[in-house]
């Protein structure tokens, strides 16, 4: 019999830079900013990446050396194609070298995929605690003029998973995955692409996979399972509402985890940030759901029982640490023009 496990603590980090979606609309006139439901999206600094964001979130957990047995780093925007971001992070957080570390990748559900693996890891008894990261910097991989440029932001969530002193006890998992080219980035290509309106807008990807995962979760929990809050993937500010409508979920249950309207699409960090917000102020015994989606395509649905509410102060602090900038500054900060790596006359 496997051991009960769950989330002990969570911490969130996002860049301070903000770009108003209406500024992107004014430059490219290619899509409607209002339709995205995103007012501002985060802008990544030139000296930051998903590893520095994850390190910021991880430092917020105050981990002690030797207390964590594994790191599962979920991201689709690691700066490295082969080097492990998890190993670098383990060293940054003082957890190396006696630790299992691996990167996990499944588009924007990389974070929940890492969470599922970490829960399985601790339930199997391979270690008492594991660290999960869901982090993405989609803003670095949004093509100029692409609708994604309006919403693509950056953020990271670190979650400590374990078997003792849990705040949210893991209950069940339902997952779906199938071959569907509704979003991808090819090797050598800097930019994420969608499969076009035929695939991305048809619901064959997101609604079908999320619906399947949610039904599978419901079957595992039994027919009468009721949720008190549900954290949903937010590629834009209206996605959670659309999912609730498609899956016949009360929209009030998904509204508490809204992060996209003020921070944009946080990719793999999005559902976990929503989960952290949804676990704040909960009563003991309440049930909180988690529903992610990754293009390509797949979805994870999980349920947790609250044993102690979490503090989502790290999300509020990140939202408050806001520095609005214009489009030109954002493009320069994110380095989205191909430039000389080492121009003459620049100090190193």
């Amino acid at each position, binding site marked *: 019999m496997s051991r009960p496990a769950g989330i002990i603590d969570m911490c969130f980090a996002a860049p301070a830079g903000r770009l108003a979606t209406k500024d992107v609309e004014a430059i490219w006139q290619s899509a409607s900013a209002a339709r995205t439901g995103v007012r501002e999206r985060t802008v990544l600094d030139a000296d930051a990446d998903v590893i520095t964001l994850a390190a910021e979130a991880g430092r917020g957990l105050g981990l002690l050396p030797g207390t964590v047995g594994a790191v599962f780093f979920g991201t689709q925007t690691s700066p490295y194609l082969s080097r492990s971001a998890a190993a670098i992070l383990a060293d940054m957080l*003082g957890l190396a070298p006696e630790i299992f570390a691996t990167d996990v990748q499944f588009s924007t559900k990389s974070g929940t995929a890492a969470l599922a693996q970490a829960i399985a890891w601790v339930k199997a008894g391979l270690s008492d605690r594991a660290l999960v990261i869901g982090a993405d910097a989609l803003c670095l991989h949004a093509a100029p003029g692409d609708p994604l440029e309006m919403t693509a932001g950056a953020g990271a969530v670190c979650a400590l998973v374990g078997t003792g002193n849990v705040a949210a006890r893991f209950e069940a998992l339902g997952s779906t995955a199938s071959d569907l080219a509704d979003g991808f980035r090819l090797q050598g290509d800097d930019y994420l692409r969608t499969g076009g309106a035929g695939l991305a807008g048809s619901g064959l990807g997101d609604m079908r996979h999320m619906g399947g995962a949610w039904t599978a979760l419901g079957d595992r929990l039994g027919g009468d399972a009721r949720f008190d809050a549900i954290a949903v993937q937010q590629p834009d500010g209206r996605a959670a509402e659309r999912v609730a409508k498609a899956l016949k979920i009360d929209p009030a249950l998904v509204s508490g985890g809204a992060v996209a309207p003020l921070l944009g699409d946080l990719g793999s960090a999005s559902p976990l940030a929503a989960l952290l917000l949804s676990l704040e102020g909960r009563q003991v015994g309440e049930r909180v759901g988690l529903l992610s989606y990754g293009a390509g395509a797949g979805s994870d649905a999980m349920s947790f029982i609250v044993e102690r509410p979490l503090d989502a102060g790290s999300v509020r602090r990140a939202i408050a640490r806001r520095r609005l900038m214009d489009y030109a500054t954002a493009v320069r900060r994110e380095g989205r023009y191909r430039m000389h790596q080492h121009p003459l006359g620049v100090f*190193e």
Partner: protein
Amino acid sequence: MTQMTTARPVVAGPARAWRTRAARYALTGSRCRQCHAYAFPPARRCAQCDGAPEPHVFSGQGRIVCLAEDHSPLAGHGGRSRRPFAMIALKEGPVLMAEIVDAEYEELSPDQDVEMVIRKWRPEQSGLPLYGFKFRVAS
């Protein structure tokens, strides 16, 4: 086959980068076993009593002592023409110099509380980013 050449000077070899990572990632300095004096970067012998120090991880909390502005554009910093730097007194005592992020020079002043973050410093010799401590105004 022609080898690619760049105008990149040697800034830090991989061995030096590896050796200094504990100080860059976690502000690991030292604390004297005898007189408990702190030091950053880590000292081989205590400057106060010549005692033997042990490694100590600093909290990352500190206060700005004084400020300066660097106007030399550095590779990998998004073309920023100027960046604020500060002498920072750590809560435990040692003073170090670091870049202040998420703020312009005009918004900063001595005695402000700051906290450590990890960011990219500059590219290593191999092109990999060298990560290290910077500071930002405490939230």
